[in-house]
């Protein structure tokens, strides 16, 4: 089973998001990047499939800000066999649509049986990577997948609907899968192992032969103006607890 995991480096939400002077996008000099959290799930699911059915796992991403190595070393430490970065003259934001096209061009030649991606990312303004990869690679796609197995040319995937209902599909490979959650929480890679990968592993580079990008026209980006804001309760925990209990009593929610 030749498994490819397509990943995305996205702005981290840990710090306050700063906008550029024009107010049309993030100030990308002021944000850290991290692996999209759904891609962590996709990497885990790929590792689980490899353990169950054998095969190789290749992790590939577009190196938009030239800081993807650590993410790729971590993926290798978690069980990926090969890491690939697409390099070129990029500048953030390199939008999803453009990243999907670059990824599809690179993945096409790898003849994968399975292409896994995180089902979404926090910056997917013009589309999630998975369905676009499927369109460009002409493969079937199922997203919001919470369980899967793949054996001998067929995958069985469990797709989530609302209310805890799921649907099961059988799909002839190759296919693209958008992972919502792996069967187990993503494994932890010890720092020592990541360091070791950083010293010994080779990251393949694919030069992008496409530099015509097509971003959407953002008129304005802003922090949402809330219609209202919670009335904040200050004080030590005891005072806060007392105030909350008081609110519940006032409303007849506590005897």
């Amino acid at each position, binding site marked *: 089973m030749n498994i490819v995991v397509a990943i995305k480096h996205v702005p981290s*939400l840990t710090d306050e998001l700063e*906008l550029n002077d024009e107010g049309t996008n993030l100030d990308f000099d002021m944000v850290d990047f991290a692996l999209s959290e759904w891609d962590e799930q996709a990497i885990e699911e790929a590792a689980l499939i490899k353990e169950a059915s054998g095969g190789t796992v290749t992790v590939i991403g577009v190196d938009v800000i030239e800081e993807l190595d650590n993410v790729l070393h971590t993926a290798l430490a978690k069980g990926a066999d090969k890491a690939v970065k697409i390099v070129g003259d990029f500048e953030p934001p390199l939008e999803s649509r453009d990243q*999907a096209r670059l990824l599809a061009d690179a993945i096409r030649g790898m003849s994968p049986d399975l292409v896994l991606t995180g089902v979404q990312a926090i910056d997917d303004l013009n589309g*999630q990577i998975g369905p676009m990869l499927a*369109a460009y690679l002409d493969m079937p796609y199922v997203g919001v997948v919470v369980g899967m197995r793949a054996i001998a040319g067929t995958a069985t995937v469990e797709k989530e609907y609302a209310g805890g209902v799921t649907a099961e599909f059988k799909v002839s490979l190759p296919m693209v899968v958008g992972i919502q959650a792996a069967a187990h929480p993503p494994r932890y890679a010890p720092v020592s192992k990541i360091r070791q990968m950083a010293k010994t592993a080779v990251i393949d580079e694919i030069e992008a032969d496409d530099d015509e990008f097509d971003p959407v026209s953002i008129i304005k*980006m802003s922090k949402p103006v809330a219609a209202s804001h919670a009335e904040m309760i*200050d004080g*030590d925990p005891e005072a806060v607890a007392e105030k909350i209990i008081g609110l519940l009593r006032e409303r007849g929610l506590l005897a």
Partner: protein
Amino acid sequence: MSNDILVMTEQLSGKVNDISYEMVGKAKALAGTLGGEVVAVMLGSGMSDAANSFAADTTIYVDDPALADFNPEAYSKVIAALVTEKSPRLTMIGSTTMGMDIGAWLAAKTNQQFVAYVADLAAADGDLVATSQLYAGKLTAEVALEGASVTAVLAGAFPAEAGRGSTAAEQIASPVPLNDLKTKFVQLNRPEGGDIDITAQEKLVAVGRGIGGEDNIELAEELAEALGAVVAASRPVTDAGWLPKTRQVGKSGVAVKPKLYLMLGISGAPEHLEGMKDADLIIAVNTDANAPIFDVAHYGTTCDLFDVAEAMVEALE
């Protein structure tokens, strides 16, 4: 390109998802300004009652046994054929677990612009602007929809009532062959009964990522017991297996409308808000003063959730 708006409606086992009516209603308001018609599209089999329930100018109902149940490949192919034929100015698809399989695929396949996570749409002088929620709801982007475009619309963004109607649907056969699909629908799996139904509870104590670990669920259970409430959760908690899936509130969980929704360590991502924003009283405990949940909650505190929960349990005993 026409000035029409095509709305991809959604059904599960013949029951129309409210997002369909929400989109049709909004499309009608936009069509008035754009000067086109609203074309609702429903895919299914033997579901003409559902197909006749929209307030669109035209409803196209594609009836084929292969479309009885949602199938991402079959549905995508049919909708792509219809979009190519009708060439609408705007195609609206739900940002739902079904719609997310189609929207970006359709836009890439038909080479149209796509905007995801749309919370609002506005039309003026032939221009269309979509407002998208990004970065887990921390930022919004206003995007000009240039040329024929596809948008994925968030559930609950528009009222459903304006989209309900009784337009007699025009039933057609599938415009594309569906006999050589690589994707086969096998079955629906419904959650096992036995657990508490959180939609029937008057009081919920909801825990999120901030609860930190399975061992800490016990504290939330203690607080819930003291309040006569039940413990619910956001997605990261059920994904981690700390609570069963039946307790999950939000987009892929259930929608709840309790009298009290006390939130411990939930930041308020749009997917979660979708399932609880109509609760009577929302109190949020979260150490991040900038968490989006404070724009939705009635009361909030940035105190540590463990300290507050312990203090509440103690005070109630």
